[in-house]
């Protein structure tokens, strides 16, 4: 994105920083949308968040850049990865498969409409350009000091409301993550597994066809090898004829 007009208006390091960070941001965003595995999408999201943190530094928002890295990539994305790993849902998704007919085309058209609308709104002058009374970004003092002063004077009430929001979120997460019934966690059933697989253990019985399952679970087959299993086939034949 670092065209000649950018370099003309800005110094070369600034333009270069913006260009690299913008490429990382857009590439990561495409990765989030297009990666098949949720883990890869989360890592692409990390790239985008880091790029935005770089842009925050570039725009004199040093505190927000640090918070961006700590909160977003340090907490939120890790939370995503925890859920992905915990639930084992890192199932790959066929991104290019269409479930509803034409869903992708409609989504793309809607996205382009959103982009056009945002750009059109941005081109018209919605801002008056007047400086606010809450605090100036320029001037002496660090960014953290100015942000803190604004947060604890002009924006004190929203800040306190934020704490209530966090409490509600914590309580909500606890309620949602609780087990639905009040029974204690049942211990895992102990299944007696023979150390040496016996002759009647059919490892493929669970995934076999109905004929295999009907043959192997018969009570009169105690020590069946494959030829015996084949020889005992005729006595099950009346039961198997309706299933086929």
């Amino acid at each position, binding site marked *: 994105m670092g065209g000649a007009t950018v370099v003309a208006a800005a110094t070369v390091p600034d333009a270069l920083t913006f260009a690299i960070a*913008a490429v990382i941001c*857009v590439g990561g*965003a495409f990765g989030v949308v297009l990666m098949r595995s949720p883990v890869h999408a989360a890592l692409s999201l990390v790239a985008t968040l880091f790029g935005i943190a770089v842009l925050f530094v570039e*725009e004199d928002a040093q505190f927000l850049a640090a918070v961006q890295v700590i909160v977003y990539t340090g907490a939120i994305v890790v939370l*995503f990865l925890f859920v992905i790993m915990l*639930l084992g849902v890192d199932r790959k998704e066929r991104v290019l498969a269409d479930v509803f007919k034409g869903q992708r085309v409609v989504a*793309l058209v*809607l996205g382009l409409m959103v982009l056009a609308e945002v750009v059109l709104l941005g081109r018209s002058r919605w801002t008056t350009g007047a400086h606010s009374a809450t605090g100036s970004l320029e001037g002496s003092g660090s960014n953290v000091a100015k942000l803190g002063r604004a947060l604890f004077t002009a924006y004190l009430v929203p800040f306190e409301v934020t704490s209530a929001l966090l409490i509600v*979120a914590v309580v909500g997460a606890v309620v949602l993550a609780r087990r639905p019934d009040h029974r204690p966690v049942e211990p895992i059933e102990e299944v007696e597994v023979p150390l040496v697989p016996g002759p009647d253990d059919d490892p493929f019985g669970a995934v076999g066809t109905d004929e295999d399952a009907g043959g192997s679970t018969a009570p009169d087959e105690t020590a069946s090898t494959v030829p015996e299993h084949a020889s005992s086939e005729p006595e099950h034949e009346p039961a198997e004829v309706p299933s086929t």
Partner: protein
Amino acid sequence: MSVHASWYLTLAALLFTIGAVGLLVRRNVLVMFMCVELMLNAANLTFVTFARALDDIGGQVAVFFVLVVAAAEVVVGLGIIVAIFRRKVGATADDAHMLKG
């Protein structure tokens, strides 16, 4: 002098659009959540850009609040997702049709 604000706004619009299209296209609930985060970050970039362009600290304070709301949203959303997945339904938003009550 830094890069002009319109470039930042264009980038933010692009990121927002990519996030919106991803939200519409993807069916994995977690990836949809990530797309929402993408859109929130695009909005944050716009806030910071206007804070610099208008010389106002209020934009950065707004980003602070957006960060808090995003964190709360992710906590509750992932709690809902865990509660859904505990019922062994599946990984996509189409599998969560029992939410209609």
